[in-house]
């Protein structure tokens, strides 16, 4: 079983979706995340084991490599796709079992901003690390965030912005959310945003890359 977990972790790390997928070239003809996940479940592994021993370790490596600049968006998306393929097998089991997720993460690109690549990467990485992710999409208003927090009071909120003009809306959202829910944790990210800005608007965390968000969530969860 150990060997299969490690092979599955490799599939996530290198983005091998299934046997027919041509990517990555050096995995050609081998089974991928799809087949191996089915195989380990058939051998009796629990969904939680698959998550903890294969998917999360694989995704963590992806996060670190992305942060270090050895892989880029296309590679991360391939890994995310491999992860999703594995999750198709796990989700029904996770739903019926008493599996504990590490927490809930509510993410959206702020009002006025339609960009979603960065937000999607963060959502995938966070999900891949064992959190439930509620993706609110792009152009998300203050009210929409507030309503979502009311529904999932234990969540952590993540705000994304690509534009210099919409990053200003982050301030509005953080202010409003904190007024209504003083203990609500909010983290921010996006190309024009930095630590200085994060402090200025009173957000709890800024991350330059998706792995940073995972690290922040893990600190809160532990």
């Amino acid at each position, binding site marked *: 079983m150990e060997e299969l977990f490690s092979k599955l972790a490799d599939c996530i790390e290198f*983005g091998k979706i299934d046997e027919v*997928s*041509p*990517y*990555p070239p050096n995995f050609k003809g081998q089974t991928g995340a799809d087949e191996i996940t089915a195989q380990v479940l058939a051998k009796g592994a629990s969904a939680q084991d698959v998550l903890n021993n294969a998917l999360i370790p694989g995704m963590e490596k992806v996060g670190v490599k992305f942060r270090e*600049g050895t*892989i*880029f*968006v*296309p*590679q991360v*998306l*391939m890994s995310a*796709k491999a992860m999703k393929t594995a999750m198709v097998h796990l989700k029904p089991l996770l739903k019926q079992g008493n599996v504990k997720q590490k927490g809930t993460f509510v993410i959206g690109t702020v009002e*006025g901003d*339609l*960009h*979603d*690549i960065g937000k*999607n990467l963060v959502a995938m990485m966070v999900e891949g690390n064992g959190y439930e992710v509620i993706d609110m999409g792009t152009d998300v208003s203050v009210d929409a965030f507030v309503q979502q927090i009311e529904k999932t009071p234990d969540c952590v909120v993540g705000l994304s912005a690509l*534009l*210099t*003009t*919409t*990053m200003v809306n982050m301030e509005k959202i953080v202010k409003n959310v904190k007024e209504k829910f003083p203990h609500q944790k909010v983290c921010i990210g996006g*190309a*024009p945003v*930095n630590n*200085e*800005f994060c402090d200025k608007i009173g957000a709890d965390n800024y991350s330059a890359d998706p792995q940073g968000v995972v690290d922040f969530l893990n600190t809160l969860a532990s």
Partner: protein
Amino acid sequence: MKGFELIKKAMRLQEVERIPWVPFVGSHAGELLGLTATEYLQSTDKIVEGVNKAIELYNPDGIPVAFDLQIEAEALGCQLAWAKDNPPAVISHPLTEGIAIDDLKVPCACKGRISMVLEATRRLREQHPDLALYGLITGPFTLALHLLGTDIFMQMMMEPDKVHKLMRFTTNVAKMMASKYIESGADIIAVVDPMTSQIDPLSFETFVTPCVTEIFDMVREAEALSSFFVCGNAKQNIEVMCQTKPDNISIDENIPLDYVRDVALRHNVSFGGNIKLTVVLLMGDEEASRRDALECMDIGGKKGFILAPGCDLAMATPKENLMAVAELVHDELLQGELRASEANVGNIELMDLSNHWDNNRVVIDIITLDSSSCAPCQYMVNAVSRAADDFGDKVVYQEHRIKEVEGVRMMATLGVQNLPTIVIDGNIDFVSQIPPIQDIKDRIAACLAAKQQ
């Protein structure tokens, strides 16, 4: 020398007397006219008026006609969401909505807003014959992303042939745009391909290199110049970008300028950038803008460097900040003062001047940028020299050039803040303006009288 000639010299890697300056004014010019981005970017008249306003305020050597990477996408059927304070955003990707790549045709230059920016180019060319006009075109990868959406990233891995085919098409569009811009009078074709910052060098070489190399070859054949703009952290791709043989690459603050300088010059490519767009130009003040620009200029140097903001200026960038940069670019004296005050802020070691002073003689220190290259400095040194003549060996005077470390240390030690300045026996007596020779003589005489008492 200024304008296009100066930029050409920089792009040819010849030493320039002054660093050229190209503010990337896009929808920001709309703000200068009190218009929304939507109003501004949909009117030839407004674009011409806005660029003229920017030229008047920012005294640039070159300027883009328009900065809008959605023009080609719009002509190809992508839907746009228009905004008040931003260029529009592409919100639909035809290739994911049932349109096949074979159905797409290179648009006519008469279509959509293409004809509008070409007309603006023609008018601006006529009004500003010496200014470098930048024709900005959407880079083939970014245009491919507009057409296909983010699916392109996975398709690169799973179905590379399809991506090659799409890139072939977007390259044809880019070449059409480049040739039309050149025909209309643009001097420099800037291929703006920010989405390439998201891919690795190998993918870049596989999908992007053949396309942009072809565009730059075409621009060269048309005897125009080219620049390759990327916004975002594309540090990993600077090397491969240079290998596509543009005349220039331009980057934003996500990439250290010294790194780009070293790589670009190694490939004989000029480079530009990277005044900080947000924390400095948008949110900072004039002082911060000047300092950041000076830092860029000092790193960039006078060979192959063009000073520019990192990318399209945020619409609400205060015009005072850009005017402060423009002033600095054209005023070498101001650069010198700023450099010296910077040194003051840092940990500069002050000098021990106890042996500098003399009980019998008057000691005059003239702090200059360099009297051989700065006219006011030269006149000031001359004035001191002539005033001192009458006093023979009772006066010693010395020029301290702040181009040298010793000069900066002397400036800091004496507490001098402006250039040029005359310090007599440690007193800052004459600042900036060249005094009448008699005034200097009077000061010397008074100091001598004090010593003799």
